[in-house]
């Protein structure tokens, strides 16, 4: 890490190799689009490279990296919400329901051989409350520890523990057929 901070290219290449999978996994699940997630992964590392001077080594690198990735992902979602025209139909009670357009090539869990399982995981995570969903992504897709999540989200460790416990309780129910 210290070598990377000094601009050592091999050390930075090692950091990219170490974190790329986790950053892409996290962003893919957050955005729901593999290609966009790959672009944002690249942008994340470019931002890291551009701001290495400002990184304080007393904090964890992973927390900083995923904060950048998270901010980029959220910004992207915000922009997409502003620019996308949603397809809406009405449910039985006349309430508008947004229709998702299926696109297999953009499936964030498309690497799963078991399509049903991939669909169930995706649906289970998507149906979580947003506060739980984010913690699940940080824990299982970004691979962060509870303490790292607490630092990144600026919340007490106990809250992280409790929310992840509740999120897992929901996931156990949603994925019961596969467990």
């Amino acid at each position: 890490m210290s070598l990377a901070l000094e601009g050592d290219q091999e050390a930075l290449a090692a950091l990219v190799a170490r974190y790329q999978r986790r950053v892409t996994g996290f962003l893919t699940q957050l955005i729901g689009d593999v290609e966009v997630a790959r672009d944002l992964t690249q942008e994340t590392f470019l931002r890291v490279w551009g701001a290495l001077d400002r990184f304080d080594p007393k904090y964890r690198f992973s927390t900083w990296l995923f904060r950048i990735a998270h901010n980029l992902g959220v910004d992207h979602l915000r922009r997409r919400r502003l620019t996308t025209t949603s397809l809406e139909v009405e449910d039985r009670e006349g309430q508008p329901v947004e229709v998702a357009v299926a696109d297999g090539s953009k499936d964030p869990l498309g690497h799963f051989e078991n399509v049903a399982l991939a669909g169930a995981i995706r649906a289970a995570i998507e149906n979580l409350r947003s506060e739980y969903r984010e913690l699940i992504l940080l824990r299982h897709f970004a691979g962060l520890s509870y303490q790292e999540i607490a630092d990144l989200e600026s919340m007490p460790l106990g809250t992280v523990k409790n929310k992840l416990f509740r999120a897992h309780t929901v996931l156990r129910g949603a994925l019961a057929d596969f467990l």
Partner: protein
Amino acid sequence: MQATCETVREELVRRGGRVEDLFPACGSHLAGCVECREIAAVERRLHRLLSEAPPQADVKLQKSILAAIGSRPRRRFLTWLPVFASLLIAAAGAVAMGGVPGIGLARLVPGWAGQAPIAVMRAAADWSVALVAVAKATASSVPAAVRFLAVFLALGGAAGVAFLARRARRSAGWK
């Protein structure tokens, strides 16, 4: 102290259902609680399932990231150091060539009271007097628009030098 079901389950979620990683108090609770043991087993499977969810490492993407990093300069102080140094030297030169102010400032510096530095500064001051005279003569004979254009070109040139310096740094790509 005996752990509660909720405490044990929170710990099981945290440790991916690995019973062997639990605190002793949780372990002894587990030995007597069938429901918590079932949750431990389900948590192990859920953890395995979720750990398979992230995509595999993408070497092509990693190469593309490194190539992109190689083509983008770091916003470091060192990048701007040549520019700052040039400005500093130019400012020092302006003070030195400014005639009387240059000598006046030099006299204030301890150890500069010797005759040699003063002589150098006086020579510089003479040069500056000559330059100022030339500048005044030029100013009176050259139209304001031309002078403005000259200043504009000089600033543009300085910006061009800074741009080229940054571009040269960028070319040091990833191996």
